[in-house]
């Protein structure tokens, strides 16, 4: 969800997040359990139509789907030889449609909308779970991925610049230490922004 949202005002963008999540789950279950190639083919055509309605950049969408193609390049021939080409085609179709629909969801839904949906889902359990806190936890987790990724990149660059040899400890120790410092600083920032309760 980091950097994948593609702003827009299409019907898909405006659809309620919980509805989108429900339809995504339903579609994945249906294509995952149906042995009929026509169902998977229909779902693929439906997914393509949804992409056109959402008017998301096709290049970005292709970037989301491309990694699964690499996996399928290896998995389909193996599956075809072991279980038959119908099963291999079904598997490939199911994976492609599921990944495409998930990509469409992330490209048309902001993190805030997902958090609010989570909070609404958790509301009936408010006696046991603080929905706001869970929402904040999810947001911070998403936010910390690029933060930690930057730390890893900087540590690797520093290691290269100093010409040190590869060792797990020389990467792990500074990454962990710097991540803890960053977590501490993020905690301070949250306090400063009024989230100290």
């Amino acid at each position, binding site marked *: *969800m*980091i*950097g994948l*949202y593609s*702003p827009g005002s299409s019907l898909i963008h405006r659809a309620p997040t919980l509805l989108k999540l429900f339809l995504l789950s339903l579609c994945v279950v249906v294509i995952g359990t149906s042995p009929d190639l026509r169902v998977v083919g229909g779902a693929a055509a439906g997914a393509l139509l949804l992409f056109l309605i959402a008017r998301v950049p096709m290049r970005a969408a292709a970037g989301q789907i491309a990694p699964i193609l690499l996996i399928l390049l290896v998995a389909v021939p193996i599956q075809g030889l072991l279980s038959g080409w119908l099963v291999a085609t079904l598997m490939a179709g199911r994976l492609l449609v599921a990944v495409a629909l998930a990509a469409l969801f992330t490209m048309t839904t*902001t*993190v*805030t909308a997902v958090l609010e949906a989570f909070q609404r889902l958790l509301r009936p359990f408010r006696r046991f779970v603080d929905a706001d806190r869970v929402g904040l936890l999810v*947001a*911070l987790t*998403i*936010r910390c991925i*690029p*933060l930690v990724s*930057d730390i890893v990149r900087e540590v690797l660059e520093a290691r290269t610049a100093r010409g040190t040899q590869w060792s797990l400890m020389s990467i792990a120790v500074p990454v962990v230490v710097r991540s803890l410092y*960053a977590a501490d*600083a*993020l905690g*301070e*920032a*949250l*306090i*400063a*922004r*009024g*989230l*100290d*309760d």
Partner: protein
Amino acid sequence: MSSIRFEQVSHSFGDRSVLHDVTLELTEQRIGIVGANGSGKSTLVRMINGLVAPQSGTVTVDGQNVAKHARDVRRKVGFIFTNPDNQIVMPTVREDVAFTLRRRGLSPAEIAERTTAALAKFGLSEHADHPAHRLSGGQKQLLALAAVLVAEPATIVADEPTTLLDARNIRRISELWQTLPQQVIVVTHHLHLVENFDRVIVIEKGEVVADGAPEQSLAAYSALLA
């Protein structure tokens, strides 16, 4: 302007004393705080919104003891950190600014309106839905500022906000300070940033060694460094 008062404030980290018996009253609109690394200036300003509690003495903002009323004080005092990356909480620019308002009891329409206005004010509108971590250093610091100012605090405390910026962005931030109607307290090593301020305080080894008009204080600081 808020009245911020330090009354005989002392603080140490372990054996190292960082502030020693500091008494100050800050009432001017633009106040600069300068000093060497480890002089205690960051600790001093962190006390203004309760990020650090003094071991002895009191800090008050408009008569409210920060140690006892930290939450109320934080609504009046916005804080900007050196590294904006550590201050950005939400994945996109718009969401991060809106995040400040989420617990203020405002309607979604009001949050959206104030967020849009804040982004426009800081020239971030075109980046509103972009990932915050992909902004440049200067834009990230502007985002940090927008995220603080959207809550309309009476005072803004900035702890070395230009340390990680290039010359162009330092100038941009510097010009911004001059236009803000709020009380601004800036800790910095960039002395030209505070040349036009109303008051500059020099901290050395946990004590106030110069306090007054910028020319006078900056001259004293330069003499100290010589």
